[in-house]
């Protein structure tokens, strides 16, 4: 009986290793997909950035805004994909590194959006969501849902960007200080209004004015 129980244990351990291997393959393929996608977006982003830097008159604003929104939508969908994959990637933290890259890309995109608003007037609102990556609360999860719905309702009238405040990114720490973000969840609208805690879509719309 001893041999049987040991054999069963070894076989189970091997099966578990196989399951682990399969899970790692799936995780790595998801991370790789995000990495490739971010690389492509990075190229598009750099292209748009160089273009927008050379704008001198408002007649090009229409094109500029549409290009900016295109990239914004792309970054937003990638953000959703990362969010989707995050819960499934349990064994490795490679996706978190991509998430940091994504956050920095978002930061650059926000900077550019601010420049466009300055040059071309305010064609869209900026809604910046500060959340905690490692300290998720029911409050934060509620705001996740409220903001996702708000973005869907506003569509291209809103540039929606999310920043994790506790992933060790100095640039985001700087932004927090600059705009006096003291807790999570917090929402910064049009670089002026800071709303902390749980707020309704109507409250957000008071400042974003998208409907």
């Amino acid at each position, binding site marked *: 009986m001893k041999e049987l129980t040991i054999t069963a244990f070894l076989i189970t351990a091997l099966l578990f290793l196989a399951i682990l291997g399969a899970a790692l393959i*799936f995780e790595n393929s998801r991370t790789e997909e995000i990495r490739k996608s971010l690389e492509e977006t990075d190229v598009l982003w750099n292209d748009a950035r160089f273009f927008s830097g050379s704008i001198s008159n408002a007649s090009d604003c229409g094109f500029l805004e549409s290009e900016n929104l295109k990239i914004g939508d792309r970054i937003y969908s990638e953000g959703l994909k990362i969010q989707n994959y995050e819960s499934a990637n349990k064994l490795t933290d490679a996706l978190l590194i991509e998430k940091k890259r994504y956050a920095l890309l978002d930061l650059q995109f926000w900077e550019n959006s601010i420049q466009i608003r300055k040059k071309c007037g305010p064609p869209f609102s900026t809604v910046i969501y500060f959340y905690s990556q490692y300290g998720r609360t029911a409050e934060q999860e509620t705001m996740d849902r409220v903001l996702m719905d708000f973005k869907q309702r506003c569509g291209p009238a809103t540039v929606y960007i999310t920043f994790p405040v506790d992933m060790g990114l100095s640039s985001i720490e700087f932004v927090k200080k600059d705009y006096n973000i003291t807790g999570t969840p917090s929402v910064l609208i049009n670089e002026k209004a800071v709303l902390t805690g749980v707020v309704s879509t109507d409250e957000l719309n008071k400042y974003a004015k998208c409907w």
Partner: protein
Amino acid sequence: MFTITDALFLLLSFVNIYFLVLFFIVFVLEGKNVRKAPAIKTLPSVSFIIPVYNKENSIAKVVESIKKLSYPKSLMEIIAVDDGSKDGSYGILKKISGIKLFRKKNGGRADALNFGIERAKGKIIACIDADSYPEKNSLIKAVRFFDDRNVAGVTVSSLANNPKNFLQKLQKLEYILLVLSRKLMERLNCIYVTPGPMALYRKDVVKKVGGFDTRNMTEDIEIAWRLLAKGYRIRMSVDSKVYTDVPGILKDWWHQRIRWNVGGTQTALKYSHLFFKKPSNIGMFILPLFTLSYLLTLFGLALFSYVFLSAAYSFIFVYLKSAFLGADLLSVQLSLNPDILSITGAFMFAVSMAWLKLSLGALKGEASIKKDLPAFAVFLLFYLAVNPFNLVASTWKFLRKSYSW
């Protein structure tokens, strides 16, 4: 992020898969011998002992079934022990010829069996419930195993008799699925129960070890452990079938399972001194299996409760609240990406299905997935999930010492 809950789920899964793998290995080694039985050398004398308590609806049919067994009548006797029935059981038995009838004060099944054993003439005693109906060839197939002097007990395939309602159909599946695993336990000399519907014992051995324990709620489990502890073997005759009446009302079913769990706990505690000691089958396998199964069931229930309550909390404080704040209640983000938990779950499901098919194959014709699909679905999704709750209730009753037949 990998959480403690994830780790606990994987630990539970590992243990479950381990036992499934163990049974698969034993099946690979012994599967072809499942229906094999030794050739008949001698036919021993058999005393059927039927402890009877308030079984007026079934007792006559039970006696009739025993009388119809294909076995030399000169080698058989039927002893019915009325254990103080309050209904018409004794009156019915008085009218039946060819049986030895005794009446005694109510003392429980074990007490009635011991009473019958004292008066039995046969070398083998066949203990049978007063609502169980043995198949015609069940006895002649079962006695073959007693040619081995070391065999003290033989159990048979206990199956649900003529299930009428859905609860009984679920029990029918349950009983069928237990047959293969019990037969494979024989290979490890770890058959830990000789179920009450029908079991055969060597009379001199049962008397030598002291008879059935009258304080135990499941004397059929306790006697099996006692025989194993004394170094005897218990075999199983898969082809010997006995059909037993199963509870058709949820309350009776629940009470029966409480009794089983309490009796199992009593037995495990009684033999706990054998933990990790020889004889190795009890100390190194049955006791750890029982204990692990008990702990993991409660643990699994605690984990499930935590996950369920977390989801409920999330639903109330996130979903409903966000809807109140203007979010769309119907927008749900489903993550269908395979992760280590879902892959493990899928693997466990696949292995369990394979085991299900094998178990059904051991008793061909008794049930099929296609024919009994609704019962199988409910069995897998809900019926098995009720056991942990019953175990909690049994533990509570055991600790409060508030259990009875």
